């Protein structure tokens, strides 16, 4: 391995890493919102929406992200919806991640005994207050392990963004290998940068899990 090449490529990978991180976090943030809304729809058994959510989950979980991205990137423009690649990437990740987040949140919500809700109701709380102050904080802390696993999974999934010509880490590595045949250096940097992004997330995740084992958020 030529360390000069590594040093030379470093800025390119750094730039790509920021893109990966930016798109990844944006997609995950959206996935959290989708997941939470859908989990609440299922928890409250909202009649029609519940079926829509069920269909979405099946569609999202049982198709590969690459296919979803192609659909958004190449398919949607055919019906007049044209967006740039970054938005497509974020949308795709949110579409995939949403369904995984639903499952994480739903299992958390379902782990709370219904009598906790009744206990809150008997104090005069309405549905919103009960959800916000009693159910959600407990459900969230139960969801943390699955949630952290999802975040890591989704950050890794961003590697298929290169297929819609987003210059993320994967794209950069493939590009450099294709242009200059510096395979070893490129792959080395690729691994290093993915670890740089994901290790802190993993560590933060296990820290969070340990802290929230008993208490909930807002405790």
């Amino acid at each position: 391995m030529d360390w000069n090449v590594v040093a030379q490529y470093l800025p390119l990978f750094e730039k790509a890493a920021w893109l990966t991180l930016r798109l990844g976090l944006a997609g995950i943030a959206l996935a959290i919102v989708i997941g939470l809304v859908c989990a609440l729809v299922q928890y409250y058994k909202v009649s029609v929406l519940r079926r829509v959510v069920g269909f979405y989950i099946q569609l999202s979980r049982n198709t590969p992200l690459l296919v979803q991205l192609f659909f958004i990137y190449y398919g949607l423009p055919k019906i007049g919806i044209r967006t740039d690649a970054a938005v497509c990437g974020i949308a795709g990740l949110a579409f995939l991640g949403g369904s995984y987040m639903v499952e994480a949140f739903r299992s958390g919500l379902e782990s709370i005994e219904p009598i906790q809700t009744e206990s809150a109701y008997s104090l005069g709380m309405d549905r919103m207050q009960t959800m916000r102050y009693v159910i959600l904080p407990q459900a969230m802390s139960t969801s943390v392990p699955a949630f952290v696993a999802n975040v890591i999974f989704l950050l890794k999934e961003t590697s298929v963004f290169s297929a819609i010509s987003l210059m993320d880490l994967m794209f950069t590595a493939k590009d450099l290998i294709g242009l200059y045949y510096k395979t070893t250096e490129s792959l080395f940097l690729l691994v290093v940068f993915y670890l740089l992004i994901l290790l802190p997330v993993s560590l933060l995740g296990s820290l969070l899990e340990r802290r929230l084992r008993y208490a909930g958020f807002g405790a």
Partner: protein
Amino acid sequence: MAEPILTVEHLVKGYGENTVLDDVSFSVRPGEVVVVVGPSGCGKSTLLRCINALEPTQSGRVRLGNETVAYGGKGLTSLRQRIGMVFQSYELFPHLTVLDNVMLAPLKVAKRPKDEVQKEAEALLDRVNLLNKARSYPRELSGGQKQRVAIVRALAMHPEILLFDEVTAALDPEMVREVLDVMLDLAKQGRTMIIVTHEMQFARAIADRVIFLDGGKIVEESTPEAFFDHPKTERAQKFLRTFTFDSVK
């Protein structure tokens, strides 16, 4: 005689074929302690849950003052604020400290100022000898302590009437007493209460009136002395016999 605080009128409640409450009517006057006893599955707990509109009923109604407490009805949350409930399984909020458990509803529901709520919460906790546990989490408490916190939490909302649903049934015998003592203290303060319990000695000591529920119907309703010493019906006699033992020596 004072107007009743709470009136239950011809309450009927069933799950499918199974009738749990069958035309139950009674009323509770201010300061009165009504104890509901009866065999398992007689509908005692369901009765309390219906009073609080935690469950729908088929017919009849529950009135609190001049207002109707109905499942899914209008103004239910404000009516429930006036009815305190304590559950068998405590149902403290595990993610909140003891103090926050007590303060949550007064702050977020009644929207009272924090200083005042905290002062009152601490005074109430002190009264049940748990001020030193104010910063603890429920998981750090014994069952008896948890139940006393649950009572305090209900009191902090200044309810007009308190419902107790077999609050000592899940407790070890030595912890039953500390909870019952708190309830006796509340009775002495003139609190209006409906108590479902299997502690017959306690029922006799605290009740102004005993309601014997069997098969979803009120079978007897009388003073504790009359009920425990001279039960009128065969069913009540049989029920009370289950609490006494003949010596085998």
